[in-house]
């Protein structure tokens, strides 16, 4: 008698198998692309240093005070007169500051990004933008070179992937009811070996795959979520200044950052959006603070500084959906535990590629078989069930 605790009714298994087969088939090609482009992205920082596209500030002894940020911005403006300053941001690890410039204050694309040493103010490099191998990998991974529609399409593929993994776990039980864990029947047909490998590699890495897949889907919502934030929270925070004209001369940015950081001594500046950008509105600097510990670094708090008077205009915690986005990013990139974690991430990525490719192979080899035949074939010592396609033996 079949053990009904781990063997759902054959009808339900058929449905779950159908879900697994079809969600997998539709998304597999795109997931393979995401996994392959994702592999170099894991080591983006290291590759950037190796290729020379990223320059590190030189090591200096001691905790030196931050240089005058007004000087950085003035230098950046001098390099690109006519362009607007969009963002000023701080690197997570190295004491480098980035000044992003755009053709107009509401430009969606940077015209230049200048990197400075945060302790001396020395100019380090003009970041190469939108070029090179890593740019191709990144853009393919993020939107297939198709902008927001491309991103949302990949998000849809991510949802199918998550469904594929979940349904795979559901059908794992019945298929493994007679096979001890991890069995790989090396003496079986090629098809059987790959079946065993697909199951072993898949079930062992299922949590990682779900987390990386799920956080990938959340990341595709980044732009829509921030647009929503701008239209709701930011609009409320800047409401008292509605109707005022766009400023042309701004108060000191260095002063703005210092004043913002007085709000909370446990926080530091992550980045600053300049007046005119959608993140700050026409009249303010938006200084985004973040915590200093690994746990609190994901919690950002925007402080609006009046860019005319330099006074604090509004402070408000970020809503839950932005926090969710912030936490999703490290869990997707795998860059939050040093190089060893990145190495493990890469191996798990490769394992996922093998699971995807073997799944495709198994579907191709077994596409004429129904679930009952597949179940019989999965059992130990069983001979392949059902008619085999002419000319193939495995």
């Amino acid at each position, binding site marked *: 008698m079949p053990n009904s605790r781990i063997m759902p009714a054959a009808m339900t298994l058929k449905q779950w198998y159908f879900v697994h087969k079809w969600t997998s088939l539709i998304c597999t090609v795109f997931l393979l692309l995401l996994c392959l482009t994702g592999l170099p992205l894991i080591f983006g920082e290291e590759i950037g240093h190796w290729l020379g596209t990223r320059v590190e500030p030189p090591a200096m002894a001691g905790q030196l005070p931050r240089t005058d940020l007004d000087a950085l911005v003035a230098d950046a403006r001098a390099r690109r007169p006519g362009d607007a300053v969009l963002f000023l941001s701080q690197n997570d690890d190295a004491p480098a500051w980035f000044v992003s410039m755009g053709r107009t204050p509401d430009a969606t694309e940077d015209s230049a990004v200048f990197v400075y040493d945060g302790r001396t103010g020395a100019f380090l490099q003009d970041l190469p933008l939108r070029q090179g191998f890593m740019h191709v990998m990144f853009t393919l991974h993020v939107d297939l070179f198709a902008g927001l529609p491309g991103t949302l399409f990949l998000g849809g593929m991510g949802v199918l992937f998550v469904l594929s993994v979940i349904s795979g776990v559901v059908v794992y039980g019945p298929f493994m009811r007679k096979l001890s864990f*991890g069995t790989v029947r090396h*003496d079986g047909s090629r098809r059987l070996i790959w079946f065993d490998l697909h199951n072993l590699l898949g079930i062992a890495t299922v949590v*990682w795959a779900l987390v990386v897949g799920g956080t990938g889907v959340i990341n595709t919502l980044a732009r829509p979520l921030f647009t929503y934030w701008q239209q709701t929270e930011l609009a409320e925070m800047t409401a008292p200044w509605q109707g005022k004209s766009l400023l042309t001369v701004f108060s000191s940015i260095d002063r703005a950052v210092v004043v913002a950081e007085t709000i909370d001594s446990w926080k530091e500046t992550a980045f600053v959006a300049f007046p005119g950008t959608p993140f700050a509105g026409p009249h303010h600097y938006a200084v985004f603070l973040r915590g200093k510990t690994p746990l609190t670094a994901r919690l950002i708090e925007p402080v609006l500084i009046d860019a005319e008077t330099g006074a604090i205009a509004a402070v408000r915690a970020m809503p839950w959906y932005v926090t969710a986005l912030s936490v999703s990013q490290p869990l997707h990139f795998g860059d939050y*535990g040093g190089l060893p974690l990145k190495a493990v991430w890469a191996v798990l990525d490769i394992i996922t590629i093998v699971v995807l490719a073997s799944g495709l192979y198994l579907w191709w080899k077994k596409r004429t078989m129904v679930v009952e035949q597949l179940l019989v074939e999965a059992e130990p010592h069983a001979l392949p069930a059902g008619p085999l396609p002419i000319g193939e033996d495995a």
Partner: protein
Amino acid sequence: MMSVHLTAHQVWGMPIALGAVSVVGLLAALLGDGVWDVVSWSALSLPIAVILSYVGMPHRQSCCVTHGLSVCSSSSHKRSR
């Protein structure tokens, strides 16, 4: 032909254990630096180690259970490839 059914614990024990270790590995480095990072990548490499150990393991068990020892050798069990 005798067929051996595994219990739910036998089927799901290892996957659940690996899943729990993976959750610990994913969260540890988020919570701190230094030793937390070590916990993270050590835990996440456990599924990899488990996979490698099973891939390398010669398979004879279940065929012995059902056929008896006389046919239990890889050469006589070879299928056409």
